[in-house]
């Protein structure tokens, strides 16, 4: 079965603005490599989790996949069609098949529109065949699908709703066209912990009921496993580990993945005071080279070799010389780390030890 969405080797570099002095001296242009040669695919009816720290390029990647911004290079294939260069009517059709849910439900809904109008807006654009009352009915059904009470909230404005309700409205708006794919950019990170589970459970339910694929972007691995089928871990614009979610989370290979898993909050109150060891170095640790300021500022185009070199506990000379490729280690599970390509035993021993 071919995948629903396939992203191949996309790159997006943002130029760093140069000061007058730098322009005067003809200093070299610096780039932030927000997304640097990333490939992934999403299967029909499955959830792909893209995880990583802030600034790792996950949102840029999602925006490229949504065609909100143009990639510098690479291709996006959706339902077997190359949509990278789409425009006009074909782009409009693509827009009706892929929807987005944003992180901040307070700013993703127009404050001057009523809830019903917000949810009906995608239908008003794409569903010209239906009459207005039919579209209204569909919008009301979408509100019911996300377990809101349409009679109660349809004529209200967003400011009268709670954060959880707003995020449901955003989901209803994404859902109302029955898209093939919904890209959800940290949809629960701004919600109360108590509401998070409801929204995640709702998303999982929608996936089952309507066979919608999700791209779920998060920095929080604890929510990822609840909803995800596959996961891609991003670090500094690259995917460092990829695979079925249980394989990756239960048997993390890349040192960065291991550090992320270490950082998951401890659910057991008995362990509250047990100091946890997170296997990562801060930016200011020894071993960091000159040009450290640039690295901290996210300007990493001067780094050769592995991007994680400076923070990795297992860094070797080879890591600095060359960049590791993303290679399959097990069935469907791939990682980009020299620990597993040169001497594959070293890493796992240290990891378990």
């Amino acid at each position: 079965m071919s995948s629903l969405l396939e992203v191949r080797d996309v790159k997006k570099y943002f130029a760093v603005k140069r000061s007058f002095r730098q322009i005067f001296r003809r200093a070299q242009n610096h780039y932030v490599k927000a997304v640097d040669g990333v490939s992934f695919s999403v299967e029909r009816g499955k959830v792909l989790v893209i995880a990583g720290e802030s600034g790792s390029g996950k949102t840029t990647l999602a925006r490229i996949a949504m065609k909100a911004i143009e990639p510098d290079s690479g291709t996006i294939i959706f339902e077997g069609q190359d949509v990278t260069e789409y425009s006009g009517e074909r782009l409009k059709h693509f827009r009706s098949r892929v929807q987005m849910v944003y992180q901040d439900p307070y700013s993703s809904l127009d404050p001057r529109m009523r809830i019903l109008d917000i949810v009906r807006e995608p239908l008003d654009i794409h569903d010209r065949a239906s009459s207005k009352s039919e579209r209204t009915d569909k919008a009301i059904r979408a509100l019911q699908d996300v377990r809101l009470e349409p009679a109660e909230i349809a004529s209200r404005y967003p400011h009268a709703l709670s954060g959880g309700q707003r995020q449901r409205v955003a989901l209803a708006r994404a859902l109302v066209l029955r898209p093939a794919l919904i890209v959800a950019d940290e949809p629960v990170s701004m919600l109360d912990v108590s509401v998070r589970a409801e929204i995640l459970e709702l998303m999982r339910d929608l996936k089952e009921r309507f066979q919608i694929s999700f791209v779920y972007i998060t920095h929080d691995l604890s929510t990822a496993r609840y909803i995800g089928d596959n996961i891609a871990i991003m670090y500094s614009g690259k995917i460092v580990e990829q695979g079925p979610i249980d394989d990756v989370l239960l048997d993390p290979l890349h040192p960065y993945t291991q550090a992320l898993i270490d950082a998951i909050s401890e659910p057991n109150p008995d362990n509250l005071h047990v100091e946890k060891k997170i296997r990562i170095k801060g930016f200011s640790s020894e071993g960091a080279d000159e040009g450290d300021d640039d690295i901290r500022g996210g300007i990493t185009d001067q780094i050769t070799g592995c991007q994680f070199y400076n923070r990795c506990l297992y860094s070797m000379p080879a890591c600095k010389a060359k960049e590791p490729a993303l290679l399959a280690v097990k069935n469907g599970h791939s990682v980009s780390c020299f620990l597993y390509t040169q001497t594959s035993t070293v890493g796992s021993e240290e990891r378990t030890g």
Partner: protein
Amino acid sequence: MISRRQIVEEFRRSRAGMAGAGILAVLIAMSLYAAIAIPLESFRQWNNPNYWVDYPRSAAPSWTNVGILGPKAPQHIILSYPNDASVSRSSLNGINLVTHTYTVDFDYDSYPSDFMLPYDVKYGSTPPILQVDVSRPDGKTFRIYYFSLPPSQSTGGNEASARVFSSDPKVSENLRNYYGDFKYQQDASRPEIMIFSDLQHSAVLKGKYMFKETFYLFGNSDAVEKSGVVLGGKVYGLMGTDESRRDLAIGLLWGAPVALFIGLTVSIASVLIGLVYGVIAGYKGKRTDEGLMRINDVFYSLPTLPLLVIMSVAIGRSIFLITGFLVIFGWVGMAKISRSLALQIKNLQYVEAAKLMGQSDIRIIFKHIIPQLLPLTFASIAISVPAAILGEAGLSFVGLGDPSIPTWGQILHDANSAGAAASGVWWWVAPPGFMIAITGLAFVLIGNALDSIVNPRSKKI
């Protein structure tokens, strides 16, 4: 984001804003009164001297004539058939007699400057005879006129339409018969003095005068169309008159709807154009933005007044053209403001959400961006009204306004060219200036109140 109801509530609490709204209400009431109660003819005939002949020349407002500061100057009195006349008819040997009687209560300290008796009679073949008797408060009656009316030159033989003036030699001839009644030397060549003089000593005889105008009509279908008494005085009406005898109260009243029309049309049109222009530039960005804003800069750097002068000379001076000229220079500032706000709003997530939903750019602009800018738009409209009104007044003042319409600027222009300020005709200069200032003030107050609600940061401490 602030809701509409909040804006209304906050506005009600703002004292300056309510004061502005109060002034605006008065101006609107003036406009309605002008449109409903004042004949439209006075608006159309503003520059036609014949329309205003019954009015006095450069008369002060009548409320200045209280009599405390000095002798009471005579009021200019205009009486006309049918409103002020009491009519009686009789018949004598087959001749129809129609008598129109006008009563004048004359209690002023000096004599009228002159008088006129306008008439208009339609007749078949024989011209009618007009007889005028004046009954004085002391019981005396002077017959001042008894003569066959000359046919009107303009309308042919069947109508006699003209005026009997106080300077008419026939009047003084008749008055000579009453020299004996006076205890002192009288002068019949000044009938307006002789008629209103005391018999005993040289002074004004105060009291009720009756002007009895009797028309002898020789044909059965003859009819009196018009008659009247006009006593020339020094004060008239609420706001006085100008040198061309025009009633300034009427001019000032008509100025209100004209000023509101110009002010609101220019400001609404230029703010809306600027709003859409700026939002398109800000939202589209890149080359569109660059191109549109450079055009905007060109307009921004044009010298407004000289170009307005050139355009009104070269293209035309009608009120609608002038409105258009003012819009051409009025939209520039709003375009800059709305562009910078569109730059902020277009980065909001719900705008991107609409874009990723497949919404077209033009709908995003009108559905998601412009509604956010509406409160600012209303404030900007209110704030830019005074500039538009001043622009029109300035053009009119330098003599380039629409000459066919009474605007405040036009009245000021007339006053200026007649040297009104130098000759002490203050009621011709001050009121139109005051009206322009107070109208500007009203919109500035409203605009500032709205602005401080919409942009809380600019609120005064």
